[in-house]
């Protein structure tokens, strides 16, 4: 509100300060203090992420979400059921890996978005709206590798299912380093 400060006329003198603004003064000394304590960078980063609220429409009758993870031209998919007495599925640990339960439209949509936006690796959480149309709940660029490894396989971009257990890092490296014959490790 008072970004340019308040003129010092009529208020007590502050030496060479042309403007007096208590907020700026506190900010100035606050930054000096945080810098001295090596905390300024983290405080500043946090500070950039305040003063906003994100609202999402509540979509009832979604007992689970479907997470599709696209890495290059591969799609992992599984369902996550909601936590007990909660509408959220994230972190519930109630995972269904059965491939026959996966809506292939989710996979097609996820492939399309990844291609459109140029994502090398991205996870998409799908819900359905009241009319049964797919709705994105969230995109995530980080995800837990073990859950993907535990999937029974993946779909390619032609929606053929390839069976096996694959670490996501393995596919990410194949794409990034362009090493088609990279050997998958037994453990990571």
């Amino acid at each position, binding site marked *: 509100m008072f970004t340019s400060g308040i003129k010092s006329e009529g208020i007590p003198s502050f030496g060479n300060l042309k403007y007096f603004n208590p907020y700026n003064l506190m900010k100035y000394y606050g930054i000096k203090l945080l810098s001295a304590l090596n905390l300024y960078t983290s405080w500043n980063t946090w500070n950039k992420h305040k003063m906003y609220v994100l609202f999402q429409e509540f979509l009832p009758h979604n007992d689970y979400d479907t997470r599709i993870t696209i890495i290059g031209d591969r799609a992992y998919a599984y369902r996550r059921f909601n936590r007990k007495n909660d509408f959220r599925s994230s972190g519930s640990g109630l995972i269904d890996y059965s491939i026959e339960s996966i809506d292939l439209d989710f996979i097609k949509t996820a492939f399309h978005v990844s291609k459109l936006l140029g994502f090398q690796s991205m996870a998409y959480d799908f819900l359905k709206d009241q009319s049964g149309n797919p709705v994105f709940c969230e995109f995530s660029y980080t995800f837990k590798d073990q859950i993907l490894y535990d999937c029974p396989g993946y779909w390619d971009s032609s929606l053929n299912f390839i069976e096996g257990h694959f*670490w996501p*890092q*393995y596919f990410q*490296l194949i794409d990034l*380093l362009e*090493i088609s014959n*990279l050997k998958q*490790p037994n*453990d*990571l």
Partner: protein
Amino acid sequence: MKKVLITGVAGFIGSSLSDMLLKKGKYHVIGVDNFDDYYDKSIKVANLNSAFNNTNFTFFDNPRFAFSR
């Protein structure tokens, strides 16, 4: 020859990247890894087998460079 520093070089990602760069023959790779116990150290050592045989690879087992090869 360009020098490249890779942290976590003994892991799957680090060792694969290191091998690829060394194979190109245009890079000297400086690898750092503290061999934490997230998984078996012998696997990590095995990951570095080919790099250790390359003269363009220098390894340090902690960020303070207490050990060098």
